């Protein structure tokens, strides 16, 4: 049976572990055996974003050591994957051997929908949801990794689901990690905009591929429109869509 190693983002580990469980469930349903290395911790993105590269390198080396024996690795956060693929090389600029190890690992690292559609070669995962779904294009998934068609194909294949247009779907929701806390008023204006577009879309559910976006948009909805839900695509595809994520 095909095995795939799971890279679970720190936000999922601490705040949204159920998404990890949904991912496991989903992969098993697709005939893949998910492997979870319990030694994993964090890709280092928070330190990199704050400019603490020395500290970030510690996280990066640990991640590389945990995962470099795996043939295929799948993650449910575009920003974690982007950190490994695009930020690790400059992190290890002065260290060719770690840099080579990072690049080697990056070549075997996939985003969930990318993995399902392109590696497993399937668009129908047996998902079902009666209603309209809007898809938010997370910044790292869309622009850093170029992934957009894959999640939408998977959503469209879900039985009973109509994928409706989300205006300005690719506009940043205002998370940006520490940004949301350091520049709260700007972040608020951005997440409100995203909420408004969601409300205007007429969708019953907002689906997205990035845990950070989910915390941000979900957290804003919880305060202002608790009747509207947002879920991670892993949860949606695993059949946990109607439960919501809040």
């Amino acid at each position, binding site marked *: 049976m095909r095995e795939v190693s799971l890279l679970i983002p720190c936000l999922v580990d601490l705040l949204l572990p159920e998404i990890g469980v949904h991912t496991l469930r989903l992969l098993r349903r697709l005939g893949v055996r998910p492997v979870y290395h319990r030694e994993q911790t964090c890709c280092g993105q928070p330190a990199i*974003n704050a400019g*603490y590269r020395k500290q970030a390198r510690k996280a990066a080396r640990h991640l590389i050591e945990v995962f470099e024996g795996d043939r295929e690795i799948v993650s449910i956060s575009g920003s974690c994957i982007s950190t490994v693929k695009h930020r690790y090389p400059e992190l290890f600029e002065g260290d060719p051997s770690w840099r080579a190890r990072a690049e080697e690992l990056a070549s075997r690292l996939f985003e969930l929908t990318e993995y399902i559609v392109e590696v497993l070669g399937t668009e129908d995962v047996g998902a079902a949801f009666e209603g309209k779904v809007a898809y938010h294009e997370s910044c*790292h998934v869309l*622009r850093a990794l170029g992934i957009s068609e894959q999640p939408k194909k998977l959503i469209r294949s879900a039985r009973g689901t109509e994928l409706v247009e989300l205006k300005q779907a690719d506009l940043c929701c205002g998370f940006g990690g520490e940004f949301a806390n350091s520049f*709260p008023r700007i972040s608020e204006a951005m997440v409100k905009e995203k909420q408004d577009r969601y409300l205007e879309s007429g969708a019953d559910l907002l689906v997205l591929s990035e845990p950070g976006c989910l915390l941000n948009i979900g*957290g804003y909805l919880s305060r*202002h429109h608790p009747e509207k839900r947002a879920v991670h695509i892993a949860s949606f595809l695993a059949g946990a869509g109607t439960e919501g994520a809040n």
Partner: protein
Amino acid sequence: MRPATKAFKAAADRELDDLASRALLSLFLQYGSAMRERGMGTFPDPAAALELGAAIRGEVIARLPELLEEFERNATARGARVLWARNAEEACALVVELARERGIRYVTKGKSMVNDELGLNEALEKSGVEPIETDLGEFIVQQLKRPPFHIVGPAINIPVEEISDLFMEKAGMKAPSTDPVELGYAARLFLRGKFRDVEMGITGVNMAVASTGTIINVENEGNIRFSKSSPRTQVSVMSLEKVVPSMDDALHMLRLLTRSCMGLKITSYVTMDSGPRKEGEIDGPEELFIVIVDNGRSRVYADLKAREALRCIRCGACLPSCPIYGKIGGYPYGWIYSGPIGQVLNPLLLGLGETRDLYQACTLCGSCKASCPAGIDHPALLLEYRARDAEGGRALEGGKRRFGEARLFDLWALAVRRAWSWNLGARFLRSILNRNQREGVISSGAGLLSGWFLCRDLPALPRRSFHELARELEREEARPE
């Protein structure tokens, strides 16, 4: 323009409260992006066009000193006088001296960001030469003594009533009007008189072609054409990164510039000057001075990473692409350059210590990078500045390392190296944050993460992290059926 980069947050808050400004910005964001898309769509292969633009600007950066020397040689051979200025004081002194020597009473000016950077207008005024901005938007903000709202539309947010009052007071308009066309015509008449008799015109430079010694300007109004062609003396000021290798390269960058900036295939006017006027020509400048300005750029150039910022062709495409700019507009960036390019340039020219909010206030969404025809990786540069700032790097005048924050990340680095320390840290974090949880939702952090909780909730941290759940799931799997 005196930098106000330290007032970013306060200025941003003011702009967020200005609903009229926000409505305008929102329109601009959508309109600007749509225009750019449409413009780029006129290329048979837009992606390749962007890639070529990046390659050309990359070559400029790689060959900068040799291209500048080549440009100087060829421009001089055509009869232009090429002058060099290390900093704003030197550049202003040069231009003021040129005006003084020629008994110039007033100059007409084309829109030029580098001239704003130099504070050229103040220097001219101090020496008794009246600088008259002639781009309509620049004219308006100059007369109102107000900073520009936006790179392309400096006065676009100003109400017509205010412009009407201004034109009646300062531009000889006889009767009030709220019709933009009538107001435009009044400005035409007033500025026309200035163009007719002007003796020195000062412009910027969009591109300086090394292989031919030609300077190129783009515009829609015609005020730059007038400033070049009516007076006896033309002074064109360029920051040193404006050079391009060949005319073919200049034409490709021109195509990218006008599409990226305004969604246009080309602006109304593009003028290419190769030296002053020739024998027998009745108009055109008898003298053409080209001033090459450094003002901190050669120092930036010495830094292999920072120098990437010099690729910029000032198209402004990054502004409507930026979701943050879309909410706060140009003022909070506090200097000549606003939006993502302001976040990338101002720290290099003013120092990291003076501009901290500028490179922190970014979600790294990458929209700017995707829209850039010059191949600038804004997110990578901002991360680089954050790292230099955290490490206390002297080279870019970073501030002191923030002690508390650095210690926090040291702690984090300890936790992150082993799962057991990570899990311990997680339990600790859970106990703190969950103190305020109610029915599975945290709405306040009692001091922690106050910015987050201003408008958002967090789910209560689950009793078991994924680490702990996984252990259970494993046990379940291992259990015999």
